[in-house]
């Protein structure tokens, strides 16, 4: 029965392979168990943020004043640089170019990512509050520079460059800043707890 003799080890190998694969998958999830827990908490916080961000409370009462405030402060930066710009509602404009600050350009999503990470991370409330305060203020100020920068890019470069900087610079790079700030905070907290 030579064929059977040949088949047996093959079956054994296949069985071993499937066991290995199963073990690898189990190992993958076991290795990531605390991370998954952290991510679920993080996603939960972000869901709460989005529910608030798109709620009628925020839309009707908070969004417009918040965007207007950002437009006014960003305009101060532009005026300090010598630009003759004016603000009307949430629009910064001059004779040559204008930017309309809308929902999504306010930097709140990046701030929410930073704050959610801090809230879920196991640390004392005092350290969390300090992180939220410093990080939140830093991100808020950076977003004002971003808005002013977008006006300048729109003024001096083509609409294509503006669009790229709007999405890449706006969402991706700005979010990356909030992630790095979160890492800096976690490192700082770890050092503090070691001390």
């Amino acid at each position, binding site marked *: 029965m030579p064929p059977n003799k040949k088949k047996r080890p093959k079956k054994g190998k296949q069985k071993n392979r499937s066991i290995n694969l199963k073990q690898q998958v189990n190992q993958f999830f*076991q290795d*990531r168990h*605390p991370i998954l827990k952290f991510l679920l908490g993080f996603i939960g916080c972000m869901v709460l943020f989005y529910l608030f961000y798109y709620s009628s409370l925020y839309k009707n009462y908070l969004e417009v004043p918040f965007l207007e405030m950002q437009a006014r402060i960003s305009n101060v930066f532009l005026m300090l640089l010598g630009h003759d710009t004016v603000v009307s509602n949430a629009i910064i404009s001059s004779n040559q170019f204008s930017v309309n600050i809308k929902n999504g350009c306010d930097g709140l*999503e990046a701030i929410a990512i930073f704050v959610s990470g801090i809230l879920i991370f196991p640390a004392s409330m005092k350290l969390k509050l300090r992180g939220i305060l410093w990080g939140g203020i830093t991100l808020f100020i950076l977003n004002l520079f971003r808005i002013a920068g977008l006006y300048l890019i729109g003024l001096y470069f083509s609409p294509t460059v503006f669009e790229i900087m709007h*999405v890449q610079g706006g969402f991706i790079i700005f979010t990356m800043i909030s992630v790095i700030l979160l*890492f800096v905070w976690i490192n700082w907290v770890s050092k503090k707890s070691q001390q």
Partner: protein
Amino acid sequence: MQSIAKAALKYFGFFILLYGAMTLVSLIPSVGAACNTVYRTPTESILQALFSKAYLQLKEVEDNPNIIRAEFASKEIVKQQTEDARLSGKTKASIQGKDFEISFYNLFLSFYLFLVALILLSPLTKKEKAVGLFVGMVLYYLYTVFKMYLALLSHFNEPEIAIYHTGSGTLNVAQSILFFMTLGTNVLVVLVIWAWLVFRKNNWKDMLISTTYRFRNAK
């Protein structure tokens, strides 16, 4: 704190360089068009399978690799118009299709490059990076296909198109999910995929430290 901040700034600098370089390369029309084609081909087949009542084609707009144009028509209407043409002795039927455009960069490419930069800059072995890039691409791709599916489903239910007549409850859920799937959510999905693929029980503390310190220590 100063040393952490300095290392973080360095990490950010490397991220900007890598992500900026990849973005610039992706903006070369031939590269963008190739990425667009690679994305469209499987997506078209998946969406055609999901929307059996519609003739659906995903096309590239000439000289603009950023755009994917979804052209569609109801199979029922096409059949009816073909039949009408045949009965009136015409050899060809003129069928009016509809279309809508999707920004390929905002949907997929920019955010996938973000994921690539994150994984490449993570302190992992080459094999782990390769696995992360592949699994990450599949997961993010499926997310974008789901987003396109919801957008098309919503579109196909509009009264003037009416290829599908989905129940109002299901349609409301689909439209609500779609409403939340913004550019901000794309970034969030990328971050979650990255963290899930890269961080582990035994490495996450080291990972955080090495992410902010690696370039300083590499010297």
